[in-house]
């Protein structure tokens, strides 16, 4: 008997460690660049979930950075410097992100990193990058604490890490923007809040709730769900009995799609509104007709509608990538390009040559980067946040995401 319960215990312990052990250690193989033809090779690292349920977004980021690197090499953007991309998979897991950060820092050819996708992953990477003065530009992190410190909500903003930048807008704007849309444009007054417990989801729901209650709306109930679960019947029942007239979801589409599907199947035909994590074609594909009438806000203006993005869209198609660039493609391209611009500034300030230890100089140059990118003018404020604070509301109509309105949140 004792033997059996011991076995059961080891079994439970073993599965627990499963989540921790799935990480290989790849030897870094890139040297500090060839000096053959007088050209220095530098690496732009990418950290994103390349496997797992968010891999569609992650691979879009990887491909877009790859496109930026290839474009820079083709146009000889920085004379004497050749760029190369090295992508690491963080599996959307914070502990893997931390390992990847160490690996990227250890590779002396890495001059800047694009990523990660998840705010929760970014939290574990920032310090490692900052200690090495290695610039990190995220195309997708929206949690405000990443740039403005943990006390941003009480008004004491302090930038925790000078090496962290992002091209995405924060949830400090996205949540309230959605709240105003729901309250004023849609006229909904009673919300049920659902989050998936990660830094992004909780942050988004928090900022939404503050603005929504300030406007006069009421919170009918709240639930936290496990990411990756399939059965949301208890949440659906809680929503139904709360009498809410819409659901605000903080999380990503792999959880939001089954939730909206099960909610509508249970006969509660109310809108699910989410953030940029929901804005993905897969959401509609998975939820089917249940997605009709749902909304999502996303950072920036729709890439397809921007005249500045036409070249990017054409080049991406011509690049022969098998996966779509996804919600963050334009931002990833701009993130990589910001690093390239910073390198260019460093090189031209150093009489046409890359200094022997360029990381700190690149970090300094980032704050002065200003160029016209895929998503509009790209530059960073004193916290490292994008100065471009546009957001767009999308709605599902007849099975496709359609643009409802683009705007900026003020006050």
């Amino acid at each position, binding site marked *: *008997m*004792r*033997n*059996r*319960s011991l*076995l*059961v215990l*080891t*079994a439970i312990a*073993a*599965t627990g460690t*499963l989540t921790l052990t*799935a990480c290989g250690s790849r030897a870094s193989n890139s040297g500090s660049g060839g000096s053959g033809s007088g050209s220095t090779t530098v690496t732009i690292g990418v950290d994103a979930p390349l*496997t*797992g*349920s968010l*891999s*569609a977004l992650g*691979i879009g980021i990887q491909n877009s950075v790859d496109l930026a690197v290839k474009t820079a090499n083709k146009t000889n953007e920085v004379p004497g410097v050749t760029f190369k991309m090295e992508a690491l998979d963080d599996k959307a897991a914070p502990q893997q992100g931390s390992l990847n950060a160490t690996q990227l820092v250890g590779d002396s050819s890495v001059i800047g990193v694009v990523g990660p996708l998840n705010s929760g992953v970014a939290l574990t990477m920032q310090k490692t990058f900052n200690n090495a003065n290695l610039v990190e530009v995220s195309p997708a992190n929206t949690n405000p604490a990443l740039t403005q410190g943990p006390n941003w909500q009480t008004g004491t903003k302090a930038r925790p890490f000078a090496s962290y930048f992002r091209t995405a807008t924060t949830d400090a704007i996205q949540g309230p923007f959605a709240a105003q849309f729901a309250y004023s444009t849609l006229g909904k007054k009673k919300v049920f809040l659902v989050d998936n*417990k990660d830094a992004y989801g909780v942050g988004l729901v928090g900022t939404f709730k503050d603005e929504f209650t300030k406007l006069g709306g009421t919170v009918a109930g*709240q*639930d*936290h*769900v*496990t990411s*990756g*679960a*399939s*059965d*949301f*019947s*208890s*949440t659906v*029942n*809680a929503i*139904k*009995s709360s009498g809410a007239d819409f659901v605000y979801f903080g999380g990503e589409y*792999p959880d939001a*799609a*089954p939730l909206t*599907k*099960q909610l509508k*199947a*249970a*006969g509660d035909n109310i809108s699910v509104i989410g953030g940029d994590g929901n804005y993905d074609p*897969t959401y509609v*594909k*998975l939820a*089917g007709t249940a997605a009709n009438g749902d909304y999502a806000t996303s950072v920036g203006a729709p890439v397809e509608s921007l005249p500045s993005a036409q070249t990017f869209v054409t080049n991406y198609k011509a690049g022969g990538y098998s996966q779509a660039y996804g919600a963050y493609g334009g931002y990833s391209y701009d993130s990589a390009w910001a690093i390239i611009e910073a390198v260019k500034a460093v090189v031209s300030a150093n009489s046409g040559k890359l200094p022997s230890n360029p990381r700190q100089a690149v970090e300094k140059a980032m704050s002065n980067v200003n160029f016209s990118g895929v998503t509009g003018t790209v530059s960073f404020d004193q916290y490292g946040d994008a100065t471009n604070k546009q957001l767009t509301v999308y709605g599902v109509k007849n099975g496709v995401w359609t643009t409802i309105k683009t705007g900026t949140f003020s006050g």
Partner: protein
Amino acid sequence: MHELPQNLVNGLLLGATYGLIAVGYTIVYGIVQLINFAHGEIFMTGAFGALSVYLGLGSGTSMWIAIPLMLIGAIVTSTVIAVLTERLAYRPLRNAPRLAPLITAIGVSITLQQLVWGFYPSAKSPRVFPSLPGGPFHIGGVLIQSADIFVVVAAVISTLFLAYFVRSTRTGRAMQATAQDPDTAKLMGINTDRVIVIAFALGAGFAGIAGVAWGLRYGEIKFDMGFLTGLYAFTAAVLGGIGNIYGAMLGGLVLGLVQNLTAIYIADIPGMSQFSSQSWSSVWAFVILILVLMVRPQGLLGERVADRA
């Protein structure tokens, strides 16, 4: 009261699916004392097998024809994979210390997940699973989807079949004999290797059925769906008494009920509202597991087996 009947029904339906998977853990454990952690992935491959059959049939096929074929596809896929893993990964370790096959099982689990992720078309994001026509039905204030009826029918028929098989067929009795004492069973002329393969195949067949049920209920399947579900099903098997097939079903039902009810009703206890949510429901499931094991270490229906090791 937050629609108590609906919550009970939802809990039982979830539990029935857990039960179908838990049967696989319990049969294999009963015979070779191996916790087959790859069983959750066997369940997942079954669902993907069914989806492949559906895609192969073309869109015009009636679901009444498609469902039996999908079930066959699921059962065949998961059984073949389970038998292969037994042959390649577990049999060479039959006489190794117990931890070795356990770790191997975890390795098999990761391998199967990655194989589906890497080689099944578009499996990198969740795949849409076909749904049953008809429904929903209102029965006394409870909303029942047509897929829910499938789950109930599948669970009842499978359990009855298993009970008949284990009790009344020669192979079933050979399985019981092997579970009680493999060495003596061997001396009595039972081919224990064959019995072990049958145990794996039987569990896998049930997992395949569960895979179809899961896909029909939730409308999507994904490469990593077996991990969490398999863990809950394993919990159900332990709760019901690992080694006992009825216990696996009962454990599944209890677990499903606990998860669904605690997610909603804990909030009604004053001061406990922060412990009530869909994500806390797994915590409560394990609290119940620990409480049950404290009173009945052998699980709800666990048998008093002689300590063999």
